[in-house]
């Protein structure tokens, strides 16, 4: 579309200038503060801060639960997207709109609600706990909250791909003698795979950084159910700025890495797009 910089539409220089100015002021300079602060630590201090046993335990909880939640979302997200795109049933439009609820519902609200549903006397907790399934105040609860906030990512990345899929592809496959399952396994799934992985990665990335919806249901027991973002806040409250900064840097590096993966995945999925 673009035909070089010598475009007759007005305002390019001020618009780009303001974009870069505001971006630097709000995002880039504040983020760089984190790295400058980290740079004041010695390497030894940094390593000690980010590898203390309690910190390592929080990584295990955070990344483990995020991974589990992303897997669950990967499966159910594809199922929901499939059902919403392929089938007709009453209330479909409403449910389609409702899928975005976790985007729109403030995390603190989600947090207290999930905690109360799964607590001992809650709507679900009262049936689960007698059977020995404890959700609230355990790592399982953390994963439940992460499933909630990550669900729309998978649905909303897979859905458009499924919508764009040409019916003829499936018709071709069935003309060639493939049964429904073979068509899904060999034709549809590979086409959806980049989108599924992108959704998986987005959901994982969101879960790793999530705070509000988790802390109410997590129980926050050090070494058992304490997530890394909470640990940053705990350190801040103890005025351990260096420790908080060091852990935050690790989180930020993980975020950047995830962002890179997601960008690569999206580039890959564009290979299949027309």
């Amino acid at each position, binding site marked *: 579309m673009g*035909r*070089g910089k*010598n475009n*007759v539409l007005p305002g390019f220089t001020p618009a780009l200038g303001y974009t870069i100015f505001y971006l630097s002021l709000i995002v880039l300079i504040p983020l760089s503060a984190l790295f400058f602060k980290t740079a004041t630590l010695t390497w030894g201090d940094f390593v000690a801060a980010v590898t203390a046993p309690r910190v390592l335990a929080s990584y295990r909880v955070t990344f483990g639960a995020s991974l589990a939640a992303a897997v669950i979302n990967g499966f159910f997200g594809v199922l929901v997207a499939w059902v919403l795109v392929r089938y007709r049933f009453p209330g479909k439009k409403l449910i389609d709109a409702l899928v975005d609820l976790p985007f729109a519902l403030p995390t603190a609200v989600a947090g207290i609600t999930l905690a109360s549903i799964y607590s001992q006397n809650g709507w679900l907790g009262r049936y689960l706990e007698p059977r020995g399934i404890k959700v609230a105040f355990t790592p399982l609860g953390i994963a439940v909250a992460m499933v909630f906030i990550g669900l729309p990512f998978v649905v909303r990345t897979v859905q458009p791909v499924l919508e764009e899929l040409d019916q003829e592809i499936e018709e071709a496959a069935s003309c060639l003698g493939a049964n429904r399952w073979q068509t899904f396994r060999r034709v549809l799934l590979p086409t959806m795979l980049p989108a599924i992985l992108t959704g998986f990665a987005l959901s994982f990335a969101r879960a790793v950084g999530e705070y509000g919806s988790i802390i109410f249901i997590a129980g926050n027991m050090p070494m058992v159910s304490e997530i890394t973002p909470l640990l940053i806040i705990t350190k801040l409250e103890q005025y351990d700025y260096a420790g908080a900064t060091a852990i935050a840097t690790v989180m930020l590096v993980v975020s950047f890495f995830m962002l890179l993966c997601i960008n690569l995945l999206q580039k890959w999925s564009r290979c299949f797009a027309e």
Partner: protein
Amino acid sequence: MSIEIEGISKSFGTFAALKNVSLKVPSGELVALLGPSGSGKTSLLRIIAGLESPDSGRILFDGEEATKRQVQERQVGFVFQHYALFRHMTVFDNIAFGLTVKPKKSRPGKAEIRDKVHNLLKLIQLENLADRYPAQLSGGQRQRVALARALAVEPQVLLLDEPFGALDAKVRLELRRWLRRLHDEIHVTSVFVTHDQEEALEVADRIVVMNEGRIEQEGTPSEVYDRPATPFVYDFLGSVNLFHGRVHEGTAQMAGLDLSSPENASAQHAPAVGYVRSHDIAIERDGNGSGAIKAEVRYLLSVGPLVRVDLVLSGSDRTIEAELPRDEADRLQLQVGEQVYARPRKMRVFVEDYQI
């Protein structure tokens, strides 16, 4: 208003879209820029409009330097390939837009705008569609609205980018005749871009044939069609057969024939290419006299009023293509596989280093 283009060059990155192009468009003429895609014709049109700025060279409107003028000040009417109608405005508002954005001082009153738009709607024969939105119109109707919108501001120059490119064959034919008649009525200097030679030949007063950022030839439709200046022009306008041979002091030897080629009188044993239009090849049953080539009929195809005949030259596997009127073909009763004689009625010979 006349347009003069002086030594315009333009590159997009490493791609040279226009290479030192100069051209004069006399006032009141309808000129076609004809060429394949990538020949630079659209870039040239956009530079005239001020939508693109040239790397070097000048544009003069009526002898006045206009290169640095902003697009708003050039007073050109531009009709976009995909019309670029404002989709949130009705047909009426689209046409009125140019009048309503004029500075307060020169802006016409509401009633005046209404009259003007209605006159234009009458001109494009869409008077009863004033309240429709672009999405509710057919392609041909959109095209006419785009034209009316451009004309509303009484432009000095009308520029049209592939004006009929997005329409189906029948509408295209109607609309280009209508455009020709319209131009005869309003006589605004107009330039349109097309890759369709028929369109250019039928509509334009003058044709500018472009290729790879250069002008190959300019002239009236008959000049360009009957006396192509370069092999490219020959090739681009109409279907054509190529013969390879030599030319020496005004005589060309091609496919075993001796042909006179007075324009190459100075050539000395030069390799040459001969061009013959398909409809300039006559087919005869018996090869009386010289100037005919023995050939075998390979394939026959009726295309409307014409019959296309593929011929294989004897003693080689070269194929040439001839086009005969239907009645001529019926008279000959040609059969696939039989021997005939092909006689080039007109051949244009170019010395080989002209070759593209």
